[in-house]
């Protein structure tokens, strides 16, 4: 697979974020295994992958709070290992867990971290109010942070990390455990930052959020398995995808396993998704009829969720063509 728009020319020193062979070992576990990344300024880069894939470890190394076991990374050319003091002023880091003081108010939390980071006193309050207004938090200045709802906490956390106007935002699953409405709201704010030119690296377990990114990388077992724009990722899926709605989805799944020209078949909720070599919905219908089942067969576009499910299966099936260009053997 190619890494088209993400991997620019080798001499891309103007990249916002670069990682070279970045690795981290915890005891016997290699949590991040030789990750190379090159993220252009202004990108919204989605870091996808299941729990335990190494997303948090990777982000913590980029944020300078965890030392790599091997390799290095640079933020706008500054090394996270050798020049952490020059990296931190340019980044905003939101850890996976809400990491503000629950017993301090919204305003006090912002004041504390902004002062600590040396944000000049003049214009600080205006900036705070503008940020909070943009997030709908301007009525809660005196509310203790621990008494905010989950979605509001995350927005406050984002506001705290934005006070010093960072060029690069590192967000570790900022919307996990947040209700759908607040998630949409959070992404609306991220879209606004994207328009202003901020580079965003966001880890997420939600595939629907991946669609909103300009580029994504799929991390599994500490390695980058796939990367590219969402369209490129989806284009990696070969063949044609059909959705089958049958009265007995499990029987349909079993029957379709013997379909000629089958690439992969999955049960997705109560819908069977079939990936075929050729555009032959008829063949699918015939196979169902042979098994004494009836169902509707419909051609459907590949979405990110399906793409990764199929790519993961192809990878496991020994077909290495679709996997692991990002992971370097360690």
């Amino acid at each position: 697979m190619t890494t088209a728009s993400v991997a620019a020319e080798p001499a891309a020193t103007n990249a916002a974020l670069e990682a070279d062979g970045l690795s981290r070992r915890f005891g016997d576990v290699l949590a991040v295994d030789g990750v190379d990344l090159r993220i252009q300024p202004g990108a919204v880069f989605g870091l996808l992958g299941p729990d335990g894939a190494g997303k948090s470890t990777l982000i913590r190394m980029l944020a300078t709070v965890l030392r790599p076991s091997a390799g290095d990374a640079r933020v706008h050319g500054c090394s996270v290992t050798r020049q952490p003091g020059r990296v931190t002023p340019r980044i905003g880091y939101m850890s996976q867990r809400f990491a503000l003081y629950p017993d301090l108010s919204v305003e006090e939390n912002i004041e504390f971290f902004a002062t600590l980071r040396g944000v000049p006193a003049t214009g600080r309050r205006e900036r705070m109010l503008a940020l909070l207004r943009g997030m709908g938090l301007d009525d809660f200045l005196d509310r203790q942070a621990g008494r905010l709802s989950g979605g509001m906490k995350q927005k406050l956390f984002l506001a705290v990390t934005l006070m010093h106007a960072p060029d690069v935002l590192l967000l570790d699953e900022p919307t996990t455990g947040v209700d759908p409405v607040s998630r949409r709201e959070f992404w609306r704010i991220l879209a606004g930052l994207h328009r202003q030119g901020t580079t965003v690296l966001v880890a997420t377990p939600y595939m629907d959020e991946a669609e909103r990114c300009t580029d994504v990388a799929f991390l599994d077992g500490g390695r980058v398995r796939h990367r590219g724009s969402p369209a490129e990722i989806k284009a990696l899926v070969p063949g044609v995808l059909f959705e089958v709605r049958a009265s007995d989805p499990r029987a349909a799944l079993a029957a379709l396993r013997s379909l000629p020209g089958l690439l992969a078949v999955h049960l997705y909720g109560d819908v069977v998704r079939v990936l075929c070599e050729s555009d032959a919905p008829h063949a699918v219908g015939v196979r169902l009829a042979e098994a004494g089942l009836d169902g509707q067969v419909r051609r459907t576009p590949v979405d990110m969720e399906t793409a990764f499910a199929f790519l993961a299966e192809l990878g496991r099936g020994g077909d290495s063509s679709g996997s692991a260009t990002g992971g370097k053997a360690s």
Partner: protein
Amino acid sequence: MIGDAQSRRRVRLLMWKEFLQLRRDPLLIRLLFVMPILQLVLFGYVVAADVKNLSTAVVDLDATSTSRALEAHFTASDYFNVTEHPSEDGVQQLMDTSRIAIAIVIPAGTQAALDRGETAPIGVVVDGSDSQVASVGSGYAAQVIARFNAERMANSGVVVAAPGIDARVRVMFNPTLAAVNTMIPGLVAAIVMISIMAVMGQAVVKERERGTLEQMFVTPIKPVEYLIGKVTPYALLATAQLLLVAGVGVFWFKVPFAGQISVVAAGLGLFMLTSIGLGLLISLVSHTRQQAQQLMMLLLLPSFVLSGFIFPIDSMPAAIQPLSWFIPLTWAIEILRGAFIKGSGFEALSTQFWVLGVFAVVIFGAAIAATRRRLAE
């Protein structure tokens, strides 16, 4: 390292934040001031209190003027409260149910024996389940009987040799004054240790648990700044606590203060550094607050038992005694007791100051080194 204005601003900011958080936790503040007072009252009144008003039974099998006079001597004493007059068989039952702590049995024929000029045995039965009551109670009983004897002989015209024995025995068995006087200086040191370690031990691990420590790493704050900003508020708090305890000790319990303030201040300063260092070390090696709490108990318990705070070191088995040398509280208590009671100065306490000084430097130094390492990770 703490030179420039930016750095000082960050330290002040951290201190402001700690005080703000303390103020938001009124329970903690109250605990920090109620706890030492409560301990003082407990130790001052309960533990060190004299044995008084022992419930007493008198079994008068003689029923003569002599036996009644003897009973009157017990009744007149502050130490005995004659509440029961059982039969001889009833004593066991009363003692089993803890209604009496001591019983005086006056056998029949006591007056007759005395009149004949013979020695008359008196039975004193003591509840041995409380060793202090047993030893003190029987001692007092012996005194009362001795006084009775002396009076009887005086009345009969026999010259009696100095009855001063009475007073000497009583001082030995009456720990009231001495106990409070040695307890308060020890308590001042113990409270410094408990409160500093309790709060410092939680301080860093709490921020680690909440993730705010990690958030701190992406700011320009340096480990030393973090340490100073974090430690100063609690050191001030501990100072307020110990002033309170010392004040209550001197003005309420009338503990005489014979020494120099500078000796006490120097001793407490060194001991505070040691305690802060221990608390920080606990906080840095613990990953959860529960771990920190357990570790703190692990350090506090031997400190209290082996330092001479409650039990005198001299009365410990010889093999155990050297252990007390490795406990900073031992030396802090020696300095404070010396300064409070004996008015000892720096020369008299130089060994103790040296040892405590070494503890302070080593432990606080280790804590700073550990902070640099753990915070950098």
